[in-house]
């Protein structure tokens, strides 16, 4: 243990604790800006400087370890003066257009201004370049607002392993992004949006699609359909000051009806459908592996719901694409069904349908532009808005979200099982798939408390589980005694680890779930800010609560799914399924 004094308070902390952490543990707040616990602690902004007695200069408390006998002052005259100057210098190169900025009232620089009282701007000087890169369908980069905190650099390099966001040049010419000859939209960017999620200001934001949605809503000749991803209901409440982890499913459905959407469907319905298709595909691959002589199987099979992950795979492992499930992501499936099954059923011209997906994800904005996502010349989904954008639309429409009575999803694409809910969190797709696959193979329920596979939940980077098949149904007798090995990862660095194993031929797994964002969709690039592990955990628990609160827990027991196969699709992996619900992937360049 280390003894130190902060602001005349004698403290004891463990060795290796930084001054910042020591202060925080003892309820001393040091104003800070770029710091992100366990993620980004490089002292780049210098706001958290403190005075250490005997030290020549002030020190950034987030990177300075506490040492024995240290005497620290966080609010001395010198510290407050310097902190103020650092803040003023930051602002001297920042456009002060807060009222027209997307981050107004939700900006960490404004929050800092609330702490460091500033009543005049003393410094006017050179300004950084104001380059706006809007080439990407998912992310817009506005370098004039960037304050060079480098959080996006850390997540893009260290957490996601993409390595696209980097500082270039120096001094006032410095900008953060791909290299100067590259545009985001033409780069290896996966569109995951984790950089957008951690940006403290308005320098990185989602490409806005609300204008297109408003236009469609006001167009009387169109039937506007909306669907919501599983993770949205576990985070949207935060936009309206609910505690993280508050489920707002009913209020969300009510708000969407009030906004004027003609039909409010649930992406969860298509998550159940994904399980039917992907589960069948997995069984087909497993059958090929264990029950035929050809051995032309490709295992492990990897889930394909996360478009950020898909693009990463296409760039980084173009030779391994056969491992990907051919299933479209759930919202694309729902879009395709809306413009065929639903249009037919309701006798609506598919060209007059406008499908909006509310997603926790920025990569979905890119996904709908892929040429594979058009059927008969019509886009499966016409617009994607993020959870944050939906929050803005609800506010803009003057809807008092907190006082809304719970609403419901519409039929026939609105009913879903608990298995679909957990698609929103890391480990969920795998658990949902195994609930169905295990039962199809053995005729018995998946073993485990409340149908959960405990080792697959939580925020660890790579999680694994084994499931031994005993006494299967006669049709699957060849699987008797087989141990199915599965792995789950979220965040692209973990994905690369599992893919390297596949590339080297050492992967022991049969089935792998990969979600592009750490924690899964609950902390996708389109979710409300801030996101940290504590908030991830609360959202994750909410998702499991939603699942456990339902009587219907397994995808194959969803009656509307059964009706869809009976009336329209035929059987899983059938001709119509292949046409509407499955896709192909593209080989992309490594750089």
């Amino acid at each position, binding site marked *: 243990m280390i003894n130190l004094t902060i602001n005349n308070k004698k403290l004891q902390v463990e060795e290796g604790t930084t001054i910042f952490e020591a202060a925080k543990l003892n309820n001393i707040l040091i104003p800070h800006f770029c710091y992100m616990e366990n993620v980004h602690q490089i002292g780049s902004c210098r706001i958290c400087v403190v005075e250490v007695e005997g030290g020549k200069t002030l020190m950034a408390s987030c990177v300075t370890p506490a040492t024995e006998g240290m005497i620290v002052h966080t609010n001395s005259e010198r510290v407050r003066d310097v902190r103020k100057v650092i803040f003023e210098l930051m602002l001297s190169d920042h456009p002060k257009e807060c009222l027209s900025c997307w981050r107004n009232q939700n900006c960490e620089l404004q929050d800092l201004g609330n702490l460091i009282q500033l009543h005049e701007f003393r410094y006017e000087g050179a300004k950084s370049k104001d380059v706006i890169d809007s080439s990407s369908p998912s992310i817009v980069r506005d370098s004039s607002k960037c304050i060079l905190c480098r959080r996006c650099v850390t997540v893009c390099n260290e957490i996601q392993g993409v390595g696209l*966001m*980097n500082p270039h040049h120096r001094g006032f010419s410095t900008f953060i992004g791909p*290299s100067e000859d590259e545009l985001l939209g033409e780069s*290896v960017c996966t569109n995951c949006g984790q950089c957008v999620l951690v940006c403290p200001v308005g320098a990185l934001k989602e490409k806005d699609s609300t204008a297109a949605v408003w236009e469609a809503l006001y167009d009387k000749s169109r039937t506007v359909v909306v669907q919501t991803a599983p993770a949205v209901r576990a985070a949207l409440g935060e936009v309206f000051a609910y505690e993280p982890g508050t489920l707002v499913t009913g209020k969300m459905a009510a708000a969407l009806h009030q906004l004027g959407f003609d039909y409010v469907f649930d992406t969860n319905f298509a998550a159940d459908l994904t399980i039917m298709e992907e589960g069948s595909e997995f069984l087909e691959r497993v059958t090929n592996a264990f029950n035929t002589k050809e051995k032309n199987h490709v295992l492990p099979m990897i889930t394909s719901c996360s478009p950020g992950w898909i693009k990463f795979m296409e760039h980084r492992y173009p030779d391994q694409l056969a491992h990907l499930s051919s299933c479209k992501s759930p919202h694309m499936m729902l879009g395709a069904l809306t413009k065929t099954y639903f249009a037919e059923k309701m006798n609506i011209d598919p060209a007059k349908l406008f499908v909006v997906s509310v997603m926790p994800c920025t990569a979905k904005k890119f996904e709908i532009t892929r040429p594979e996502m058009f059927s008969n010349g019509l886009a499966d989904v016409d617009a994607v808005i993020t959870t944050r954008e939906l929050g803005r639309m609800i506010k803009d429409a003057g809807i008092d979200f907190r006082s809304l009575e719970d609403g419901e999803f519409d039929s026939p694409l609105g009913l879903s099982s608990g298995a679909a809910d957990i698609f929103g969190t890391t480990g969920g797709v795998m658990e949902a798939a195994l609930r169905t696959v295990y039962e199809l193979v053995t005729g018995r329920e998946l073993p485990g408390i409340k149908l959960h596979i405990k080792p697959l939940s939580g925020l660890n980077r790579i999680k694994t589980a084994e499931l031994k098949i005993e006494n299967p149904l006669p049709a699957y007798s060849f699987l008797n005694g087989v141990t199915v090995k599965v792995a789950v990862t979220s965040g692209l660095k973990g994905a690369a680890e599992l893919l390297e194993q596949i590339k080297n031929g050492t992967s022991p797994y049969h089935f792998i779930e990969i979600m592009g964002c750490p924690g899964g969709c609950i902390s996708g690039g389109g979710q409300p800010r801030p996101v940290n592990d504590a908030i991830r955990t609360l959202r994750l628990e909410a998702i499991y609560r939603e699942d456990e609160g339902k009587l219907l827990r397994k995808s194959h027991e969803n009656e509307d799914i059964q009706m869809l196969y009976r009336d329209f699709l035929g059987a899983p992996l059938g001709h119509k399924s292949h046409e509407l619900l499955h896709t192909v992937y593209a080989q992309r360049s490594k750089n």
Partner: protein
Amino acid sequence: MITTDEVCNVLTMTEQEKYDLLKNVIIDYERKESNLIQILHMAQAIFGYLPVEVQHFIAVQMELSVSKINSVLTFYSFFSTQPKGKYTVSICLGTACYVRGGKEVLNKLKSVLGIDVGATTEDKIFSLSVMRCIGACGLAPAMTINKKVYKQVNPNKIPLILGMLK
């Protein structure tokens, strides 16, 4: 280990030979990210500058993103993404050279050559760059043309010095 002297005969090399040499350099440096700056030095010695194509080549060989390569090379003024002229004229603007008139020498260079810092004359003879202290403060203001150091440079002498080279 390949040395800078060995890359001196690059003038007679084909593009393919240059890339092969660079590949060997990268292998010599064990494809380590921590050796990136040395590799960029050698690459610039081989190609004269570091165009996008060379950055891509290094990125693929080292399994790094091209953005990462670009990030490092744009930080250091030594590296250039533009082709350099036959002579690189560099004026020192470190503190000593600055106070002894380095700025006036730079302005004279700009007007005589008709180019800005970082640019190359149309005839590809001269490139202009600025250095921050080369450790020759006793010679201030100091200027280098390729590897030759010129001491106590008087702005009025600039046309003469450049004319002799042409």
